[in-house]
């Protein structure tokens, strides 16, 4: 493997990130930072009801207000047919996306957009919203997934007939889809088991919690060309969605991604962007729209809340004989929860021979869910990894040993279909076993839990461009907004291939017109797929450099090799020449054939599946129900850590978000389906003082499909924490928590009830 033979200069080092200085000095420009001359302010009117029919919308008074330049409703958006297209890790239906951006006949959740205005000031825009008269007929609503599945539940869409069951039902329901993955004879499998654990679990919808709210500026000129600046994980997706939603040609739209203040999957879709373009088109002026935090909570996608049932049986020696799971995921107002990936991931870490997973995608009166780190997987893992822990206890086996016994390895026929190539799950378990944390002593009311997790990681389409400047420095253009330090790792790969100093490589994120189509930043794909494109583009540059040197030396390009940032004659036969550096060749580029520019475009295949195992120690205050995370170690196979600090950062960030999900984050809805806690004060993400230093341990089992062995790393780390925390609590005080979040009042109630 390339990684083992070659001595690497940059891969695995920790240089300072290219975006670091601007971020710590406050110079970095985020979504809301752009201001254009003549710019208007756009604002959205949102539904106060969880479910209602819109009888009429009267915008006359708002339009009459001086300073108001445009008011739009769904009547201004073209009607689209139902059409599913892949969108990152989830699927998107343009008809639904359009209705989510501006409600059509009905509003489906508290905060659903019904109209938008553009005015000369924020105060006027706000005043205008108050002048829009919407006549609602309030309908019964449902926000709980199990309740929504009942035949008598209030129906959201009267044209929704469950997919995936034959025959297709004749009556509509809130169940959009049923999926199933199964193998073997379940009944026989459970009959062989010496112990069976069967439990129901629930998880709450949780928000990605990115610090930067959605923000956009759009400017449309008289000839219909639109420029858009926004905070997004995918400028090309934004361009495509706007084109679809507003019936425009793709090339009429140019989208520039700003610096991004967090996304975690939540910025792979659009909310404001098409509205800003529409308002700008109607007014002929630039329009800026920025969400408030309350809008972010009320109207943008969290991940699903869910109700799960998990049953796992094993023989005395810990061999799992059968496993079954039923997953019911909230999709929010429109179909499209991550239940399918959840079902695929549920048993993915294990070599179970007999299993069945059934998943239901269920619409409820909540905001449409969006991708959130490893969409669907953490929810399923909470159930499966909790059940395995209980099973281990029942069998009196070390929970780690139970996982080792059943772990998937290279060659295992994965529960979701393919056979695994080289994977590092077992290596993560081994690293846990060998880590001092696993054996460290615990005090009273303290406990330790472990849990594992899986994510596919994806590849996909990417372009990269490398331009060699006259002085031999290099500018890399990538098409992926950088949300996890990818500029650093891409530039490092370019420096590695070119054999030059990292400081001589500058990297920017291009807009949709400066770089070729690149699929969005999601699925932990960037360092793998776009990294591969950067490597190929750099190799393209190297080829050209060798040709230029050959030209200077008047020998054949085959007789030139590139080593340590210099062209050398391949051997004695090639002749004797002083090596030519990148700087030398760049200076003469005009004379040897013109500027040097490397390009690559590819559709990366062979992403490396990712596995992680976490160890969590807690202390439980039995009188208040409060849980303190004492120590936390996250182990993960990174394939190859290009920049270990940013891999560690991903592991720490994922674990921190998972701990919030486990302990405190939840949406509180009142009886009318109105969100009561749309803010960070009462939607409780953990703060620094709630967390210990999370230790990140990187295991490296290279992915053979990437030049440096890279796997994605950004998503796996949010998968194990919920079960790791629940297992630790059980270990501490013998109380098994099956419902999230395990907040102090809930845990205290469970302690009162004797678990």
């Amino acid at each position: 493997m390339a990684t083992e033979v070659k001595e690497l200069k940059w891969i695995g080092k920790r240089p300072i990130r290219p975006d670091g200085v601007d971020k710590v000095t406050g110079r970095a420009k985020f979504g809301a930072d752009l201001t254009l001359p003549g710019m208007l302010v756009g604002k959205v009117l949102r539904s106060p009801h969880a479910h209602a029919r819109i009888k009429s919308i009267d915008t006359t008074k708002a339009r009459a207000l001086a300073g108001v330049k445009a008011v739009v409703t769904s009547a201004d958006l073209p009607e689209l047919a139902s059409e599913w297209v892949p969108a990152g890790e989830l699927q998107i239906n343009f008809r639904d996306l359009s209705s989510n951006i501006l409600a059509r006949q009905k509003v489906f959740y508290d905060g659903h957009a019904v109209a938008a205005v553009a005015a000369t000031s924020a105060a006027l825009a706000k005043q205008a919203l108050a002048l829009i008269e919407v006549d609602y007929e309030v309908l019964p609503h449902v926000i709980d997934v199990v309740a929504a599945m009942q035949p008598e539940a209030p129906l959201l869409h009267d044209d929704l007939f469950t997919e995936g069951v034959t025959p297709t039902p004749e009556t509509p329901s809130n169940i959009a889809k049923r999926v199933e993955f199964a193998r073997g004879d379940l009944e026989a499998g459970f009959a062989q088991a010496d112990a069976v654990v069967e439990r129901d679990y629930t998880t709450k919808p949780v928000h990605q919690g990115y610090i930067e709210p959605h923000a956009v500026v759009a400017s449309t000129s008289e000839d219909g060309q639109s420029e858009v600046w926004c905070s997004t994980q995918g400028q090309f997706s934004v361009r495509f969605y706007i084109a679809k939603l507003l019936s425009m040609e793709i090339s009429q739209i140019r989208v520039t991604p700003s610096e991004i203040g967090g996304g975690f999957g939540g910025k792979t879709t659009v909310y404001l962007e098409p509205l800003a373009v529409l308002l700008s088109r109607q007014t002929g002026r630039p329009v800026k729209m920025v969400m408030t935090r309350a809008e972010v909570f009320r109207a943008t996608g969290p991940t699903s809340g869910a109700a799960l049932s998990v049953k796992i049986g094993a023989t005395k020696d810990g061999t799992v004989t059968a496993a079954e799971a039923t997953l019911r995921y909230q999709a929010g107002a429109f179909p499209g929860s991550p239940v399918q990936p959840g079902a695929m991931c549920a048993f993915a870490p294990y070599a179970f021979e007999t299993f069945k997973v059934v998943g239901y995608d269920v619409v409820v009166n909540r905001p449409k869910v969006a991708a959130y780190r490893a969409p669907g997987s953490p929810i399923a893992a909470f159930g499966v990894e909790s059940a395995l822990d209980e099973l281990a206890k029942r069998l009196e086996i070390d929970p780690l040993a139970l996982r080792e016994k059943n772990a998937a390895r290279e060659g295992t026929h994965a529960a979701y279909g393919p056979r695994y190539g080289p994977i590092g799950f077992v290596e993560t378990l081994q690293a846990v076993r060998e880590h001092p944390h696993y054996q460290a002593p615990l005090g009273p009311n303290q406990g330790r839990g472990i849990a594992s997790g899986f994510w596919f990681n994806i590849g996909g389409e990417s372009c990269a461009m490398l331009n060699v400047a006259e002085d031999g420095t290099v500018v890399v253009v990538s098409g992926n907004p950088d949300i996890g330090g990818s500029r650093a790792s891409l530039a490092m790969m370019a420096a590695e291939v070119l054999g030059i100093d990292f400081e001589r490589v500058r990297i920017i994120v291009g807009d949709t017109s400066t770089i070729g189509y690149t699929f969005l930043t999601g699925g932990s794909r960037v360092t793998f797929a776009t990294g591969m494109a950067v490597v190929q583009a750099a190799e393209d540059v190297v080829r050209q450099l060798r040709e230029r040197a050959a030209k200077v030396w008047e020998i054949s390009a085959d007789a030139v090799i590139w080593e340590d940032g210099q062209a050398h004659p391949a051997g004695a036969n090639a002749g004797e020449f002083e090596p030519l550096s990148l700087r030398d060749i760049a200076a003469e580029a005009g004379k040897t054939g013109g500027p040097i520019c490397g390009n690559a475009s590819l559709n990366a295949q062979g992403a490396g599946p990712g596995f992680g195992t976490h160890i969590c120690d807690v202390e439980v205050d039995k009188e208040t129900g409060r849980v303190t995370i004492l120590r936390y170690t996250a182990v993960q196979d990174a394939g190859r850590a290009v920049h270990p600090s940013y891999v560690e950062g991903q592991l720490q960030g994922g674990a921190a978000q998972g701990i919030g999900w486990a302990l405190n984050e939840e949406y509180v809805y009142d009886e009318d389906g109105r969100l009561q806690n749309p803010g960070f004060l009462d939607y409780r993400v953990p703060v620094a003082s709630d967390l210990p230093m999370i230790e990140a341990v990187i295991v490296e089992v290279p992915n053979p499909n990437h030049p440096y062995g890279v796997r994605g790393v950004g998503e796996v780390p949010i998968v194990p924490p919920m079960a790791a925390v629940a297992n630790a609590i059980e270990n501490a005080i013998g109380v098994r928590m099956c419902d999230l979040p395990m907040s102090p009042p809930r845990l205290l109630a469970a302690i009162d009830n004797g678990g």
Partner: protein
Amino acid sequence: MELLPPFELLRPTTVEQALAWRLENPNSRLLGGGTDLIVNLRRGIGEAPQALIDLNQIDEMTVIAGDGAALRIGASVKLAALAAHPLVRAHYPGLAQAAASVAAATQRNMATVGGNLCLDTRCIFYNQSEWWRASNDYCLKYGGSKCHVAPKSKVCYATFSGDLAPALLVLEGEVEIIGRGGRRTAPLAELYSRDGRDYLSLAREEFVCSVTARAAPGLRAAYDKIRVRRAIEFPLAGVAVALARDGDKLGALRVAVTGTNPWPVLLEETAALCGGGVDEALLQRFDALLKAQLMAMKTTFTSGHYRRRAATVLARRLVRRLFDGGYMGETR
């Protein structure tokens, strides 16, 4: 973030000037650090004021002075300064603990003692956006006629959640108030009414100039709060205890609680608990006192019952620790 309404900003440098401007501008609000007031104004809570009177430029209001027996704290002293002050840390540790537990570092750098004592009461149905409150027909505390926490109630149950008040109440806190008649002092407990809506007993133009704490010899005091997060979190319940030992008996006991009632509760009838040792029987009587005097209303996302119970747990622990001479130190 929502828009701030327009207002005039007035910056008096003496209490007299502040009072004069206060009298001239009946529709003004007092500005400490603004960490509560500005949030509320942005949300359209309360009438938009014509003027904000900034109390931070008045020298006498920014001073901490005193000794181990008594401490005068200007109302415009920042919480960060209070928490870090050597005198406070040495002799009034409960006060330092309370100040250090407010919000997070950024708020404490701005927030003032006066603002914390006069902090508006809080409720699920009140600390919400204009839009949210409108779609819920507002509430008894502001703009509406119905209390959503207790629909038949004529009084508002919005909860007082300041951290400093209990710590000062157990140290015989006394406030100095500026008003039409000049300066007057009053026990801190009297600063508060019993209604979450008009939660202060101040006259329209009055404001707090300073607060004084006292520490009798041998008195041990501490503050602790229960919260879900360790920072950026109002107290689900906060408890201050000050006690003195008389040999192996409890000689004096004062207990105050925040986060449960519309006012910071200075527990009544604690004297009856004194004179014996601290054992389980005493603690059960203590529990009963707390249960009788603390409310359990659903004004936050954490149920009132949980908050009251947690307050009881904290109170017991503090009493035990202080009685046993625990690590929290003595006030002298």
